């Protein structure tokens, strides 16, 4: 991810992505997704080149980035853990799970652990409501998650980091 790249490399990546997407109808969202997929977040430095390529104002680009919960303007930890806060998961004890996660990780939502391993985010339904409560770790969904399952997920994420 970001750490392993130089600024020039990032610039090159972003310009390549802009070139790839700019002529698509409604290009901004696919472009922002591509940037976030590739470098992990949307740095403010990209607003100007994007606005030029798509004939938008910088304020418009900024407005779009901040409107959508999915886009992050700051680098996340090595893993993103999302806990579902929506009704079905509440009916199955997600509130206790949230409290447990915040305590174990010693962070609140939208924060990253001090070892940079995990960023904690809320999410509103993962479509796994028959097996609530649900948690998403990066791109993987987990169902019927207990506090012990959550501990195991955290441990696994941290262990994976330690190896890198």
């Amino acid at each position: 991810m970001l750490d392993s790249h130089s600024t020039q490399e990032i610039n090159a990546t972003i310009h390549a992505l802009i070139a790839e997407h700019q002529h698509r109808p409604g290009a901004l969202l696919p472009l922002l997704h591509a940037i976030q997929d590739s470098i992990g977040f949307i740095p403010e430095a990209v607003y100007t080149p994007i606005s030029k390529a798509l004939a938008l104002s910088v304020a418009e680009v900024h407005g779009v980035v901040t409107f959508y919960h999915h886009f992050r303007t700051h680098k996340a930890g090595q893993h993103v853990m999302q806990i579902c806060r929506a009704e079905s998961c509440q009916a199955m004890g997600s509130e206790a799970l949230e409290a447990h996660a915040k305590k174990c990780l010693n962070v609140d939502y939208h924060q990253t652990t001090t070892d940079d391993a995990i960023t904690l985010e809320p999410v509103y339904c993962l479509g796994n409501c028959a097996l609530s409560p649900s948690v998403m770790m990066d791109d993987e969904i987990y169902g019927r998650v207990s506090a012990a399952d959550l501990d195991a997920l955290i441990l696994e994420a941290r262990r994976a980091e330690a190896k890198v």
Partner: protein
Amino acid sequence: MVTKIYIPRDSSALAMGAEKVAVAVAAEAKNRGLAVEIIRNGSRGLYWLETMVEVATSSGRTAYGPVKVKDVPSLFDADFINGKPHALSLGVTDEIDWLKKQQRLTFARVGVTDPVSLEDYLAHDGYNGLKNALKLSGADIVKIVTDSGLRGRGGAAFPTGIKWNTVLGCEAEQKYIVCNADEGDSGTYSDRMIMEGDPFVLIEGMTIAGVAVGATRGYIYLRSEYPHALAVLNEAIAVANKAGYLGDNVLGSGKAFYLEVRRAAGAYVCGEETSLLESLEGKRGLVRFKPPLPAIEGLFGKPTVVNNVISLATIPIVLDKGAQYYADYGMGRSRGTLPIQLAGNIKHGGLVELAFGATLRELLYDFGGGSFTGKPIRAVQVGGPLGAYLPESQFDTPLDYEEFIKIWAVLGHGGIVAFDDSVDMAKMARYAFEFCAIESCGKCTPCRIGSTRGVEVIDKITSGKDHAKNIALVRDLSDTMLNGSLCALGGMTPYPVLSALNHFPEDFGLSQKN
């Protein structure tokens, strides 16, 4: 002989470890020198039994579940690949009562076929609908859809045929078909199951819509929380393009239809159709004023059909079997079937597709088996975060759009979320306001400001501060939101709030009803 083993690639099955089970089954078969073919199907929707593994035997597909990795060696020891008994045996899949009692029309193939095999799709009646449609005029296709009685399954229940007719009647050099796959409602996952379990049925439905109204371009606006659905859809679209079911010349008809998936970015309001169109255009998802209707001025200002995944995925069977076949199911003005999703605190959560008319009680107890915790079900929320909470006294209401309106409730996208008696309904009302505040697009004041005020007022009520005054204030505020909001996010947040207050006054420090 190679034995076919089915292990789902559905997100909820994966959430219960289906990937690891598939790996373990493959490894164990290899160790034992057995020839097996593992097919990654969709889910049959009996989610409490995931990971459900099926084996094709001479007496039909036989199911085992819930299978964990540790069960795999014993399954092989028991000779499950010949359908022999094991502690996890569920018998012949089609004979499982829970499935047998259903009327699966839209979901006929989900869990049955290999989602990305066009061959399998064709062998199970796939593309019969499109082939029929290509022999008809646009007006005739629209008439069949209208006569089927199909109403939009995304929430508003607007007749699909009438919407298509408006787009058909517009003159434009470009028209669009947009599939609303934002599925933001808590307690719903039927769109996801279709996209992961039978993507071709959605592709076919959108193609028929394009042929009917003269649209050559389609977009699937897919929520970003569904990475597995994205992968399956893109795989299936590539297959359909290559085989000539999409592209410049659909099945040699001379008609073009291009289809693309666009990822949403985690805003609930973008499920609202005009906000969705803004988002597809690359803007903030601010709700548009109506008129103009999207059917007349939709995506990039062009005539656009916006339909939910289930609405579009139901089109192929209507065009295959005819309007009357579909309309024969259901009650009153709710024709056909509804894919119901059982969620929350429920023992047997999963997908139940039934003709309209079954009661909530049948769903919750005959299918759902009561609560997961074994305690009494105290409340259910039907229709997502903007749907009303219903108490036990309303569980005999039949699932029918009009019957629900009569009790100031909505069916929405067909999600039913159960809560046991540990639920605090004042907390749920507070959450409804909180969710509205988080997700408000900000365009109108009652929604943007009212929702935040609502949270504060509920807090005052639960802490007992100026109790009577604040109860009156919640009602006032709800009234303002009901009447003064541009879209249903602000306009329907009062449904969960007031239904909680009216049916469960004791949770708000008021004496019980009556």
